[in-house]
């Protein structure tokens, strides 16, 4: 039996006056997957999450979470969703225990044992007021409050922002502790690529409100390659280069670029066709972070998508 997508958006748009925060966003997050929504600051990641949870209303388009249209989300659906955002205003006057005790009655699936386990793992002081906790500890308290009821969907909006490495590790471990749970879906927005790479199956890249691509991480890493070659010292590179070559740089005879539509059989032939004098051609895989940087730097100049890429020096 085919599983439903945990999250779906169709032509989702949100404008704040003349600022188009999200433009025609269409993507789906399969149930049970961990999906990373990547993008630079102000790309529209947080707005997308708020739209999904009906915190703000879309200008146009639709979205649904856990099979329920976002506009119709009620407390029954919210009881299955965890939302962790750096922008969330916690009731700072409460202690950790007061906060958890206050939330518990609202969640029928609240797991006291898991809650106690997470408190211990996160080393959270129950009697300490939230306002006296560090930023990292507050984020952990918030995460804990979203994990203790074993949600079906967790939305993590920039969860690593401002956290030190230890706190990040705790955060990721806490999140991963629930990953084994059946049908748990996680949507995480971040520009912290290294951490995301460890967690995610799927990745979507959003830039200036537009989704440039959405695919599995293995597919993404598989089609991006860093290509190095050598040319004659006086030779001019042709002006019309393939559109899937990004970040082309030249230092004397050495030329480096990122091929975002790498195919082992066709790559070398395409290079020689474009630059006949090319020699010592070598390729190497890119990390998700390198791919992110390549796309981010290029996206300011031209529009990018998985099938059509225009590159310029």
């Amino acid at each position, binding site marked *: 039996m085919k599983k439903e997508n945990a999250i779906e958006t169709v032509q989702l748009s949100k404008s704040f006056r003349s600022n188009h925060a999200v433009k025609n966003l269409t993507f789906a997050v399969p149930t049970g997957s961990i999906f990373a929504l990547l993008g630079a600051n102000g790309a529209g990641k947080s707005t997308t999450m*708020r739209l999904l*949870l009906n*915190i*703000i209303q879309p200008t146009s388009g639709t979205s649904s979470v856990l099979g329920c249209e976002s506009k119709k989300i009620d*407390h*029954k*659906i*919210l*009881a299955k*969703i965890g*939302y962790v*955002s750096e*922008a*969330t*205003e*916690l*009731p700072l*006057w409460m202690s950790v225990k*007061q906060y958890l005790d*206050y*939330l518990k*009655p*609202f*969640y029928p699936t609240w797991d006291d044992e898991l809650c106690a386990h997470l408190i211990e793992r996160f080393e959270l002081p129950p009697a300490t007021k939230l306002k006296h906790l560090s930023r990292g500890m507050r984020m952990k308290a918030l995460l804990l409050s979203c994990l203790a009821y074993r949600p079906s969907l967790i939305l993590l909006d920039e969860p690593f922002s401002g956290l030190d490495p230890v706190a990040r590790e705790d955060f990721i471990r806490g999140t991963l502790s629930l990953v084994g749970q059946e049908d748990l879906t996680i949507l995480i927005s971040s520009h912290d690529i290294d951490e995301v790479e460890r967690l995610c199956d799927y990745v979507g890249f959003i830039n200036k409100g537009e989704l440039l691509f959405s695919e599995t991480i293995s597919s993404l890493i598989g089609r991006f390659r860093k290509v190095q070659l050598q040319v004659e010292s006086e030779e001019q590179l042709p002006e019309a280069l393939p559109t899937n070559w990004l970040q082309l740089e030249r230092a004397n005879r050495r030329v480096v670029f990122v091929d975002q539509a790498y195919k082992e059989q066709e790559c070398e032939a395409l290079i020689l066709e474009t630059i006949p004098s090319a020699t010592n051609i070598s390729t190497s895989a890119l990390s998700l972070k390198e791919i992110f940087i390549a796309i981010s730097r290029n996206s300011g100049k031209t529009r990018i998508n998985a099938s059509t890429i225009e590159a310029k020096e």
Partner: protein
Amino acid sequence: MNLTLHIIKKDIVRLKWFIALWVLVLVVYGVGAYLTADMSLKHWWELSKAVSNFEWILIAMIFLIPSLVLHSEPLVGNNSDWLTRPIPRKSLLFAKCTLFVGVILLLVVTVVVVLAAQDLLFANVVTGKILYSPLFSRALIVVLAVSLLIASVTSSLQSYLISTVSACMIYLFGEILFAILTGTLHVEETRPSDLSLLLQMVGSVGILVCLLIWQFLRRKPICISICAGILFFITPILSEFVNRATPFQANEVKVHESIISESEASFSVVSPKISRAYENDAGVSTRSIKAEFRLEHVPAAIHLGYVRGQTELSQEGLNKLTTETHFWYDLNEEGEISANLPNLRFLNYDNGEDKPLSRRDELVHFRDANMNTYQGKLSKLKTSLHVDASRPKVIAEIPLRQGCVWKEMRKMIYISRLDVEVDKVSLRLRTRDVLSYLRFLVVNQTQGQALFIRRNSIDLAFPRLLGSTGLSERSLSTSKRKNETWHLTREWLKDAKLYVITYENLGYIERSYSDDNFVVTEVEDEPLM
């Protein structure tokens, strides 16, 4: 219901210190009022004043209640934690409302205790305490309602406070503007000039602008708030300064002839002066001439009677202007009256220049109610008065207690304030009707003694607001006759009553405004009751 109680419990924990303070204030207020019930006059007076200061705290607390209750978990905003929590909206809203009502209920209970301490009936609670004073009324009617409304749509304490203050400023600004535009600003006591009113308006707008800048730009909030604070304090001071310096206050219009017909009493005019000045919609300035008279031979009847007045401007230089309006003036025991002569529409001065009225013997132009234009000199003012004091009738006997209400038909007199000094009782009355033709006496029938009204003025700074309660307000002070030597005691006051007196043949004047005419008509034999 369980979730509602759960939320209420959380909010009570959140606001425990505030609620404790609230209860403390109410207890002090209630106990203080209760203790004053059997005290000696001196201590009673002092303690009453101290207790009355708690009104300010009560109002401040009322101002903060909706904010603290609602904003302990903001109902609006995009970042609130509860937005993504499965908290049923109905439970949340019901919990907030329940807690809010509960906190306010404490105030109601205290008010009942305070009233009970003054031997007032429970029925007086609604009509009495709500109308306890203009300030209290405003707090309950305006501040509370506006606060609740704003608190429900603001997402933070800061935005709530700024929005509420701004709303109040806009309201006051609107009140003044409305009163000026409609010519209904009653400012006999303060006599503000046009300029001082304008200054108040500018000050109000300035404060508002500062707050808006603070709200929207968020730059240098301290400097901006200091500016707003300076404006807040300096505006009334400047306004008062301008008010005092205005030439209308020191007008020297002389009345050369004065006759009292139908009475043997004679009188002289002490200090006629321009008391009000404003422009109507048509841009025509109107001056209300206020004259103070002193009767030299005061018949006994006058103490309880009225003087019927007729004003003429018909001397040299003034072709013809006789006002056809009759006014009923109050007299006090000293034979002093303070009367507003008919409003004259002032068109212009010589050469069309707008010179102050204080310049004597200048040729001025007037227009009467029939749009006839006259010219003349203000120095030639003739006023004739006659006394009509026939058949006085007591229409109300009100126990001399703060909060006591007399109601009959559509008329109502409410003692909103009762201050007792060593030899004087100061009353502040709120009335539902025009009571310019009523006299007030404080009488102790047992002792056969009475306090006469010494001063009588109308305090109506914001008629629309008070109008919403259907009431106007009147301040009275009483004093003893000079030849009486008895002492004012609490016991004396307990037996005393406020007598409201009118006259069977007394008509009252009905004023109506048309486009740009001030029409005065007299309705004869219109019963007051």
